[in-house]
């Protein structure tokens, strides 16, 4: 039985609406708007409800403008909901009590905690004072973060002289110096190279495992979600579309498998990609050919029956059956028209 003390985040019917000005392009429309301004209401988040237990790592997925960041802002106290309630670590975020703020971290973008003009270690020291971390604990935490994020060569250089990936690692360290129990991570690997992304993912995973922190992260990189999150929330047009395991989402929305067929190099299929395409075409839709390999999309229900016949293809060396890439699954989930905006005067 889940008790209230086991719940890190409880969101009930969270809604956030904005009233934004609209006008047509051009000088005339601009002058007209001085006197008569048109606005429209944008419901960035609508009636979103979910619970996250302490220690969970949850991915928050959605296309641009879906409402992910707005939801994170409401949960961290940056923004008041238009209606509905949120409780994080037993506190109401919108009240922004200092005790609550000491227990959370929010990372959005790459310029958050560090002072641009001075080395990161100076900013770390300031944050130690701000969050009231005692020196011994700070030293221990900082040493750990320096090791985990490989920061030793970076922290005595002015932050503006660091690369994007280096800055992001320092920002992560800055956000975690006070050992927050709740991490809100908004696109933590955005703009980073592959190696830096991997490093950040590993760090977040280890931090959560070691400290038992609860993590809610948004990302456009499915590799982040697949590597970190056991559970996903999918939001689109401000509404929660799905709440469950990522694999369950894929199974629900994808009725296809990808079969990669490999031909022997000397065979007809291995020598000529067009021949390979012709050979596998009866089994499903050919989506890619590359050298001696050919990828074909097969309906999930037909896989078992067709794979037996596949083995009879001339020159076939080997084949593998995989789920559709999660990116393609998510594309399908997000394919729906946006509601018409309401224009008011």
């Amino acid at each position, binding site marked *: 039985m889940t008790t209230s003390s086991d719940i890190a985040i409880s969101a009930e019917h969270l809604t956030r609406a904005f009233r934004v000005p609209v006008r047509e392009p051009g000088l005339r429309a601009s002058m007209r708007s001085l006197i008569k301004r048109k606005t429209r209401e944008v419901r960035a988040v609508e009636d979103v409800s979910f619970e996250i237990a302490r220690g969970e790592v949850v991915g928050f997925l959605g296309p641009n403008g879906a409402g992910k960041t707005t939801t994170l*802002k409401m949960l961290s106290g940056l923004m008041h909901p238009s209606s509905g309630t949120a409780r994080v670590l037993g506190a109401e975020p919108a009240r922004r009590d200092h005790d609550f*703020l000491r227990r959370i971290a929010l990372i959005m973008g790459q310029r958050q905690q560090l*002072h641009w003009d001075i080395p990161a270690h100076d900013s770390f020291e300031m944050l130690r004072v701000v969050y009231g971390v005692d020196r011994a604990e700070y030293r221990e935490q900082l040493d750990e973060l320096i090791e985990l994020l490989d920061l030793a060569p970076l922290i005595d250089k002015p932050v503006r002289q660091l690369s994007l990936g280096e800055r992001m690692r320092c920002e992560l360290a800055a956000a975690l110096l006070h050992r927050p129990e709740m991490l809100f991570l908004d696109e933590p690997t955005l703009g980073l190279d592959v190696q830096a992304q991997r490093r950040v993912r590993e760090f977040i995973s280890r931090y959560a495992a070691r400290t038992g922190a609860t993590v809610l992260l948004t990302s456009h990189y499915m590799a982040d979600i697949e590597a970190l999150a056991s559970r996903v929330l999918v939001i689109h047009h401000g509404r929660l579309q799905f709440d469950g395991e990522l694999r369950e989402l894929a199974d629900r929305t994808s009725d296809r498998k990808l079969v990669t067929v490999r031909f022997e190099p000397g065979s007809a299929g291995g020598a000529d990609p067009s021949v390979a395409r012709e050979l596998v075409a009866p089994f499903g839709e050919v989506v890619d050919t590359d050298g001696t390999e050919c990828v074909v999309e097969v309906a999930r229900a037909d896989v078992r029956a067709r794979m037996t016949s596949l083995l009879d293809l001339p020159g076939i060396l080997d084949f593998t059956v995989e789920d559709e890439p999660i990116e393609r699954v998510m594309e399908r989930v997000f394919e729906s028209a946006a509601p018409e905006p309401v224009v008011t005067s």
Partner: protein
Amino acid sequence: MYLVVLAQYRANMAVWSLASILQIIVYMSVWIAVADARGGSTSGYTANTFAGYFLVLLIVRDMTMTWIPYDLPGQVRKGDLAPKLIRPFHPVLMTVADMFAFRVQSVLTVVPIAAVMFLVFDARIAGSVGAVLAAIALIPLASVTRALVDTLFASTSLWLVRIDGIRNLYYMLLLLLGGQFAPLALFPAWLQNGARALPFYWTLGYPTELAIGTAPLSEAWIGALVLTGWALVTFAVLQPVWRAGIRAHEAVGS
């Protein structure tokens, strides 16, 4: 931490100090010229006492001014306020802390230069040692009051985002009614009364006049009372205004 930042940009620090002093020197030079043109004095100020007034004002201004009317709206507009709202203290306190660091730098640079200017312009002040000490004692209170008033004004950016035009008006009021452009005695009585009804004069012109002896030491307690009153009233008004502003602030751009 801001002292560390200032030390990082030494040339900027030097130029800033110079520009800060030059502005006051210009006002001082104009009024010295006016006094000389009017036979040696105007409204009770001679060239020497004008010099004394403006050089003391220079120090009082640096000890009480804040950048809150620039910093806060800038943060709101660029989306930089959001990460500061996540910290467990008021975001404006960071700017206030930066100002303390600036004042340390100012004491090291502007005060010695002002002392030299005192000799160069043969500045005179009529205030007693007690009056100067009383003025120094008022400066922390004036600084707090000024910070609160600046924050209340800057909070309008939470709704309006861009307040450049309003800020120019705000600084114009400060310039005229605070005594920075000219001592209050040079203005008509109705304008002097209006200035005394607002906080600007009490945070800038009044400590200056106390130090140079044109405001009586025996009434320094009134100045302290007025400053305390403005601080308390502004603080009380600021609480609901700030809460409402944060509610209206949409944390966009962050």
